[in-house]
């Protein structure tokens, strides 16, 4: 088991920022002295060893160099310096359905995608039935995929990818697709791959997936390896680092990514037991306040919130979208809405709330990871025992003896 599957030594990748070399610049450059271009190291002296059979989760913020690392390991782009050695047949999956053509049928696309991913026709034929069964699009196999729903499309694409035979598998966020049922299926398939003794390199923002799938993890920051070790340890460090920068339980908003909004969020706050606070104990009441302002009085607001555990990933979604009965008693231009969860039984740890606020589902400001708060341990059971952190929530479930003899 301690055999090395992937060995990365001082891998670096440099991009040149200014002037990507248009024809005019290149021609002009022939006659003038070389100017120093702005340089940017997307990856700098990155070294890592991955053991055979290990499932290595790569975490880091956007722009930290995760994608560059994957692209180099997938041979899509060349490193500027350094070396990576991969022992075994490598397949990388940076996207599902690469090369899929909308005019071709599902059957044809299976062969097309399979061979793009490096399978031989013989291999694809052998696994064809399995792929079709896994995808669940059997009935539409001879229909052009342009008539597929996006869910079917993704299922078919993932099904091909899931049946690749590779000793080393490089995966990028491909699990963030499809409906919940299919995601579960994908995670199951991933587990199967993992138990097969294959080596997997997995980049994802789905921290729940990283936690449940990976046997080890590493953290990239600004192109450099910060930490490698157990998944728990790395995820914890990642969040601690992240929180230091932008931890906030109360914020005012005055600039927007979406410039076309007719209704804008102005304020977000975590409310614990009726008061704005970033700290709560297990068993406290939790609510969020969302201040808004509209161009004209409105009687409705679109509001969605997703709660994320820094350890277990997204676990709760609530939205006005499914509650069309939530209307203001009279048209309101400026106001505040409280999202009242009541006694939400969250386990100790750090939590993040993301919001979608706007006039309608297609006109929203997305406030990803907008609020952070922390839940502290409390003897909620009255037994003096600490709660084990196995999921994001605890529940004081009644147990009952049904039969005895």
């Amino acid at each position, binding site marked *: 088991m301690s055999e090395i599957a992937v060995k990365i030594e001082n891998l670096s990748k440099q991009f040149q920022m200014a002037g990507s070399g248009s024809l005019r610049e290149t021609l002009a450059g022939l006659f003038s002295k070389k100017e120093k271009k702005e340089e940017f190291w997307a990856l700098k002296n990155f070294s890592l060893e991955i053991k055979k059979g290990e499932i290595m989760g790569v975490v880091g913020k956007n722009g930290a160099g995760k994608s560059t690392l994957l692209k180099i390991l997938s041979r899509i*782009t060349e490193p500027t310096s350094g070396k990576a*050695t991969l022992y075994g047949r490598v397949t*990388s999956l940076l996207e599902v359905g690469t090369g899929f053509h909308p005019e*071709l049928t599902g059957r044809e696309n299976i062969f*097309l995608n399979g061979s*793009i991913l490096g399978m031989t026709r013989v291999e694809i034929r052998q696994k064809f039935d399995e792929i079709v069964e896994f995808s669940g699009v059997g009935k539409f196999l001879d229909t052009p995929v342009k008539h597929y729903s996006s869910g079917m499309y993704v299922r078919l694409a993932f099904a091909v990818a899931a049946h690749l035979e590779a000793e080393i598998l490089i995966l990028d966020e491909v699990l963030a697709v499809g409906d919940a049922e299919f995601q579960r299926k994908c995670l199951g398939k991933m587990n199967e791959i993992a138990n*097969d003794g294959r080596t997997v390199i997995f980049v994802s923002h789905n921290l729940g997936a990283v936690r449940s799938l990976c046997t080890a993890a590493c953290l990239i920051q600004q192109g450099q390896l910060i930490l490698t070790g157990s998944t728990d340890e790395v995820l914890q460090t990642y969040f601690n680092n992240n929180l230091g920068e932008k931890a906030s339980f109360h914020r005012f908003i005055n600039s927007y990514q979406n410039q076309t909004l007719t209704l804008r969020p102005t304020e977000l706050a975590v409310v614990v037991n009726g008061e704005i606070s970033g700290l709560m104990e297990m068993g406290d009441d939790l609510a969020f306040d969302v201040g808004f302002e509209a161009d004209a009085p409105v009687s409705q607001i679109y509001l969605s919130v997703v709660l994320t555990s820094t350890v277990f990933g997204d676990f709760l979604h609530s939205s006005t979208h499914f509650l069309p009965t939530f209307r203001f008693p009279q048209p309101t231009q400026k106001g505040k809405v409280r999202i009242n969860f009541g006694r939400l039984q969250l386990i100790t740890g750090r939590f993040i709330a993301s919001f979608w606020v706007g006039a309608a589902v297609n006109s929203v400001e997305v406030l990803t990871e907008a609020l952070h708060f922390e839940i502290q341990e409390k003897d909620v059971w009255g037994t003096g025992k600490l709660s084990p952190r196995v999921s994001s929530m605890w529940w004081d479930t009644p147990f009952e003896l049904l039969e005895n003899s």
Partner: protein
Amino acid sequence: MNSTPETKLSVLVIEPSKGVFNLNFRELYAYRELLWTLTYRDLRVRYAQTVIGALWALLNPLFTLLILAFVFGVVAKVDTGQNAAGQPIPHLLYTVAGMAGWAYFASLFSEAGTSIIGAQGMVKKIYFPRLIIPLSKAATAFIDFAIVLGFMVVLMIYYGFSPTANFVFFPLFVIIAIVSGLAGGIWMSALTIRFRDFQHVTPFILRLGMYATPIAYPAAAVPEKYQILFYFNPMAGVVEGMRWSLLGGAPLHWYSYISFAAIALMLLLGLFYFKKVEKIMADIL
């Protein structure tokens, strides 16, 4: 897991490539199935959307043929000579024989030239030898070739012409046309990635080339002092040669070999340049 016996343990080393000229034909060969698959996709998809689409494929070369035959045959009254049997070659037939090679070249050249840009979704997401993409266009261009050859057959029957013994050389000129189209296409695909300006160059070259190539007139009609310059056009020799193999008539000028040499050189340099751009392709797309 049943792993195939030959995969004992493949070791992949990723390093910055050295500046040596390494085409890696072995890898290209290993990816041949992908080449077939992409070719199949292109063929399948080409006229998938409309019925009219397939009709356009016929109308386009037909009108080109009629215009060329009208301008050079009716208006300019270019002398097309006679075949070995002493039959005078009708202008329409002369032009269609010239167009065959050109149609193949033009199709391959323009398809291959835009091929990498068209496949950027794939290029950015998965590794394979990028050369596969322009190469896969070599087969689809045969559609355009076949259409013109179809016209050719019809006209030959109509005018009562039969193929001459020269026909044995026909495949040779087809191969030269493939190489020529690929050479140009590979150049263009790499240049277009590097400098988007070249997107506009392809149609320009093709329009110019259609007149600078002896499609509807014999190369011999070009004044002697311009002849050598004329044959620097890689397609000049191919078009003359292909017509000669189909209809007979005046043998090839030795300058044709300049054309062929130009093609070989262009392909070699094109591959070299393509390899250079391939390294940074995913970064600049």
